[in-house]
């Protein structure tokens, strides 16, 4: 027998043997062969499944509950300190970091890995000659740049812990000399804020350039402990920068805290007034649902008109709908009707419900309509037909970004296309949807449009999509336009010769 043929046959025999062994239940894990169906009851299987599912779900919840701890985690700190202690720094730390970077793998979507070795090398270099380090680091790219950017702040945190302000200030000065002051100030701020050390912050201010200082003070909020909010406020007041309070987490409702600060006469009047007039903080103050509508409008610095009320309505309705009941989801699953959701929102916002019932209803409609368009229409049932149609078409145009195309179609089908105004508004809604859907879903959207059932919406979908793609895909536009049968839309198709 020829060699190749023998090979084929013996391989085939091995393959067959494998098949036979499996069928006979004689695999090497013989004692774990499939149990006959009759030996494992349905109830046992269900119990096992439920237990497994419960474990999986508990793990996901535990991960979701894990709180974010700013700064180095204890294990990472211990590991890095061990490495710092045991390492005798090489003469050429740059070369050592370059070598290390070759095995520093950051998955495209992965977390930033810990590298105690890199932290130790940077730590030693910063201790020895910070200016040389920054000079080298400022033009880094490639894998070494990635690694150093991700590990640098850890070395700074450890330097600060080990040597205090005496180590930090010369470092910042060196960074400034090499043009890296701003980016280094951000890392320093994160580390300094962990201890909320006001003395050290004052020293940074006295020695840093204006640019570095602005970056530094504007970055402190990221890791400043919530329980030391009073010191944070004092710092912001001393700088007369109420804007620093915007993103700081005070560990209690922000609006309440801001009101306390405004009433705190130990703080400069100018700073307190600054809180009142800062647009971002005004927004926060006006969002406080424990206040009266009048007070909220006053905090917002706005007139009591339909638009201001609609803005407050939008905030409050969204807050109620997003609470633990998750009303939009309950509505989508048929566990609550639109009317029941509206009642729940009214009950949760009695003052607003009495003062602006239409604005409240409209916002609830806008939030629910994407979940079940036909089911949400009951909210508009009492409106005159023309007003109802206008509201639906406005919602289709402005409130349906990123919604499923099927839901959008279902919404449009709640209104006729009888009048010219409704027809034009419907076309506008299609024009916006097609523009966004083509951008997001490309060929998938084209397929969906071409599969639509006959009717005015198919006509408008073809027309609007053709307009969107005509610039780059003229052939596709032509084929879509060839499918249009509506006489009025056909008339609007530009002739091919038009520039």
């Amino acid at each position, binding site marked *: 027998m020829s060699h190749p043929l023998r*090979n084929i046959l013996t*391989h085939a025999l*091995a393959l*067959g*043997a*494998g*098949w036979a*062994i*499996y*069928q006979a239940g004689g*695999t090497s*894990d013989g004692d*774990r*062969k*499939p*149990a006959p169906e009759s030996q*494992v009851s*349905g109830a*046992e*299987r*269900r119990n*096992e*499944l*439920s237990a*497994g*599912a*419960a474990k*999986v*779900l508990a*793990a*996901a919840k535990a991960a*979701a509950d894990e709180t974010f701890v700013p700064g180095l985690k204890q294990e990472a700190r211990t590991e890095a300190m061990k490495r710092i202690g045991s390492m005798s720094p090489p003469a050429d730390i740059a070369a050592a970091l370059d070598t290390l970077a070759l095995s520093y793998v950051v*998955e*495209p*979507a*992965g977390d930033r890995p810990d590298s105690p070795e890199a932290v130790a090398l940077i730590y030693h270099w910063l201790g020895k000659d910070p200016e040389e380090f920054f000079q080298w680091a400022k033009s880094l790219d*490639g894998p070494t740049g990635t690694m150093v950017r991700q590990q640098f702040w850890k070395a700074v945190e450890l330097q600060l812990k080990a040597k205090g302000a005496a180590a930090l200030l010369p470092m910042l000065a060196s960074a400034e000399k090499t043009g890296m002051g701003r980016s280094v100030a951000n890392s320093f701020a994160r580390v300094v804020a962990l201890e909320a050390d006001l003395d050290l912050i004052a020293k940074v201010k006295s020695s840093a350039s204006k640019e570095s200082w602005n970056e530094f003070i504007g970055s402190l909020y990221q890791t400043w402990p919530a329980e030391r909010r009073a010191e944070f406020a004092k710092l912001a007041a001393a700088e007369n920068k109420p804007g620093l309070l915007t993103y700081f987490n005070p560990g209690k409702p922000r609006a309440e805290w801001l009101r306390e600060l405004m009433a705190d006469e130990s703080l400069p009047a100018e700073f307190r007034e600054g809180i009142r007039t800062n647009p971002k903080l005004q927004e926060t103050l006006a969002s406080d649902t424990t206040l009266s509508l009048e007070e909220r409008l006053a905090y917002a610095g706005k007139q009591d008109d339909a638009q201001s009320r609609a803005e407050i309505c939008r905030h409050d309705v969204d807050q109620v709908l*997003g*609470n633990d*009941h*998750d009303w*939009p*989801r309950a509505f989508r699953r048929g566990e609550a009707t639109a009317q029941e959701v509206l009642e729940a929102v009214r009950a949760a916002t009695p003052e607003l419900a009495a003062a602006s019932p239409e604005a409240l209803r409209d916002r609830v409609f806008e939030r629910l309509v994407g979940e079940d368009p036909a089911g949400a229409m009951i909210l508009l049932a009492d409106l005159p037909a023309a007003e109802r149609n206008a509201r639906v078409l406005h919602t289709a145009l402005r409130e349906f970004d990123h919604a*499923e195309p099927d839901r959008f179609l279902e919404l449009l089908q709640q209104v006729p296309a009888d009048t010219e105004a409704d027809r034009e508004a419907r076309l*506008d809604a299609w*024009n*916006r949807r097609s*523009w966004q859907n083509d951008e*997001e*879903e*490309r*060929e*998938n959207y084209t*397929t969906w449009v071409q599969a639509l059932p006959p009717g005015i919406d198919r006509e408008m979908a073809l027309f609007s999509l053709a*307009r969107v793609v005509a*610039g*780059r895909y003229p052939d596709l536009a032509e084929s879509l336009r060839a499918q249009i049968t509506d006489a009025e839309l056909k008339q609007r198709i*530009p002739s091919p010769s*038009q*520039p």
Partner: protein
Amino acid sequence: MKTSSHLPRVFTHVLALLAGLGLAALASRGGTKTEVPGKGPARSTTNTGAEAANRSAARGGGKTRADEYRQAWDDLAEETMSASRRADIQWRLLKAWAMVDIEGALTAAKEEGFLNSSGAFDEAFMANPRESWTALRKLGLGSMELTTRWAQMVALKDPDAMIAVLGEMPPRLRRDAAGFLFEDVDSDEAANKLKEKVLRIDASEEEMEMHLRQAWLSAPLLPEDRVRVDGWLDLPAGTERLHAMTGWASGLRYQDPATIGAEWEKIPTADRAQAARLLLNQVGKQLPGIRFAVDRAIEGGQWQTLRDNGGAEYFSSQLMKGEPEELAQWALTLPHREEVGGYFADAILPKLTKDPEAGRAWLESLPEGSWQRDEGYAALAQETLKKGGDWEAVVEEISDAEIRRRAEERKRDWEVRKR
């Protein structure tokens, strides 16, 4: 010696035996159904990861890891909680589930309208690219963003796996795909290795040109290493020539117009249309040769390439960096064609907006009824709209009914699309 020479054969026989075991196990699963309490039959899973999970679980008594995740997902759906907490837990479930049963996880996410779930599937995409790809392709409408994400992730982690499915990609994703491959390349050596892979792709000439365009755009050589014109002139027609020619066009992005002009003179007439196309696609992102490239593309009748680049944001911003007077004079030399309309508007606007009064006077000085004057007013009207000025007053100046109609249509689009 003898033993070692037989080792490969022993190994392949063992592989065949294992394959037999695997095939038998797969075949034995044909009619198995797993019931999930209270939910009817478990959703079917056809991918190999899920099958492996099911197979090993069947031996343990009927439950599967994929089923556990489905059950956990369904149990979570019955719980009451805020939308943000649910989304957080769902994200974590999907991330782990996808590693066990990507199709099940994707299907569940789609049912929940959660397909663009910022990174939940990244790890699974990279760990099991082919299986993920197959699952993604079944999802249809709503899945393009995630499919694009797959291409980006897999291109970085496992370029071969991405290249292997290029032919199955929808055309517009395929157009961008080679760009993803080169997105994170940071050395000429790595770029060259990847380009070698791209050259081995089984693609039509048109598609290869598209892939090479993206490859060179994303990973150009350093100016000193650029491909010279004699690097491709004498090569026979084929992929190697196309590659070198695209590299040459890519290298011209750094050169001044005089150098580009001198290089152009060396190109035989028969190659000029293609060279013009490649040049426009490569120098479009840099300033010096941009008008030269547009002019050559017009000469060569490369209308589709002109259409693709004209008016694109990156292109406009580069073109508009030119000196306003020179740009405006150049605009007046362009033909009145749809494919060139974007270039005309970009080239004329700096003059019209730098000193609005002088710009307007210049526009009025153009011959009345000329397309340049009317298109100039149309471009100005669009700009006025964006800046909140008196659009009507500008549009009134347009004498051509068709140009005015298009200006009105652009206004409507702008209003419909704004936030």
